[in-house]
């Protein structure tokens, strides 16, 4: 997620963000695949989101693994500590 997030950065995640609010394009989220992954929302459809890494050239994201279900979203990044 360079340049916004570097390896080793500590982030605060709000797991309740999307219980009431809806995801927005540009939100940085944590999603759960086999492990937790940090990505930015690029597109939104009815119940799915398309995520991309900021480091477009190197990122493995929805361009490889496809749209992700809303339920795969763990939470929204609130702050970098």
């Amino acid at each position, binding site marked *: 997620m360079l340049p916004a997030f570097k390896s080793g950065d500590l982030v605060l995640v709000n797991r309740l963000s999307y219980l009431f609010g809806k995801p927005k394009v540009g939100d940085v989220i944590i999603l759960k695949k086999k492990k937790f992954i940090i990505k930015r929302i690029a597109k939104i459809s009815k119940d799915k989101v398309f995520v991309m890494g900021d480091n477009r050239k190197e990122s493995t994201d929805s*361009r490889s693994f496809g749209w992700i279900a809303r339920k795969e979203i763990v939470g929204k990044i609130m702050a970098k500590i």
Partner: protein
Amino acid sequence: MKSFILSCLLKVFPTKIAYAHCDVPCGIYDPKPAQIAAATVYKMVQLIGEFPAQNPTVNDRNKLIRCVLTKEEYAGKCKEEILILWTDYFKPEHLQMFPNLHDTFWKAAKLCSKNKQEVSIELAQELVKAVDEIAEIFQKAKAAASKK
């Protein structure tokens, strides 16, 4: 003080690691390992072909088995390396640039399996050629990406 508060908070609230990449180390892709593996398969097929059919010694048999094992192992490695490039490096937008991408990779992966099943210099040559073709596509894709 800030770091003290932070370390106290971290003790109370558990942290988990979130990865920015699905594969580690992400972004390091190279067709070279697949090319070396294909060349190894080719060499092993050559060596197996030179094996004396009449009165082989125990050492000859040992060598034959080692060659067959190596062929098996490297054909498997070749397939693995090809699949990494296919599934991880190449992205849907590459299909516009290389419309035969899927077919090329699919045929190369099939050739790896064929080379496991059979001892054929033609099949080994085809594999080397197919992997070279993938390497060429990869270099073109890299060159196009660096221009962006």
